[in-house]
């Protein structure tokens, strides 16, 4: 598979992990998108240096062609999949650990915020 195809598959797979497997549903939360907006600025900077200085070079046959800040657009999909997989995993690990700990300490539930 080309880099382009793999990048698309990765984004779809990670969305499935977030929404259906771990059910962390980060892509439905503004806290995720705000953090991602910050991350993408630094990603473009770092990726721009890595690709602009030819630290990493790409086979033209493996990518679509368009570039943003020197880097192939596929890198944005790659970066999104990396960040979402990491944060969904982090959310799942914390949900498990913090909920278990709280259960031992305090069984009272918070008032529903939807009221």
């Amino acid at each position, binding site marked *: 598979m*080309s*880099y382009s195809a*793999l990048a698309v598959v*990765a984004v779809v797979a990670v969305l499935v992990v977030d929404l259906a497997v771990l059910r*962390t*549903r*980060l892509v439905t*939360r*503004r*806290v*995720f998108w*705000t*953090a991602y907006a*910050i*991350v993408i600025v*630094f990603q473009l900077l*770092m990726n721009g*240096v*890595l690709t602009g*200085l*030819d*630290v*990493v*070079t*790409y*086979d033209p046959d*493996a*990518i679509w062609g368009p570039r943003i800040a020197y880097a192939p657009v596929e890198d944005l999909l790659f970066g999104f999949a*990396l*960040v979402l*997989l*990491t*944060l969904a*995993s*982090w*959310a*799942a*690990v*914390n*949900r498990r*650990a*913090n*909920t278990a*700990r*709280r259960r031992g*300490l*305090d069984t*009272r539930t*918070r*008032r529903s*915020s939807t009221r």
Partner: protein
Amino acid sequence: MEQLTYLALLAGCLVVTAPLEVLLHVRVYARWRRLLVALVPEFVVFVAWVLYAIAAGHWDYSDVRTLGVRLPGGIPVEEVLFFLVVPVCAVLALEAVRTVTGWDAGYPAPDDSAGSIAARNERGADRRAESGQ
């Protein structure tokens, strides 16, 4: 010096995000065991992706701008570090946004963080309200 280009970028990421832990007290490094567990899926999947990409010739790395240390599969040592450093920075960013805004991330804040203190106070206020104080 050129050989330190990639490594310096990674170090820069850690330096730039360090104030989030030190000044904003997001307690990401403080929960380092949890952090390591959370990184496992990302690390396995993306290192495998890179190994495949190198084998398939999708991309290659400069030997001038890296240390030139290649691990099995031809992956530069910096690239392996990338998949530890960048996700840590992403977690720091998420926790920073959550700490500053108090927005829900779908899991309870740790007991000793600012968000949790706010939640505990809220529970206390609920209890007082229910008991008519």
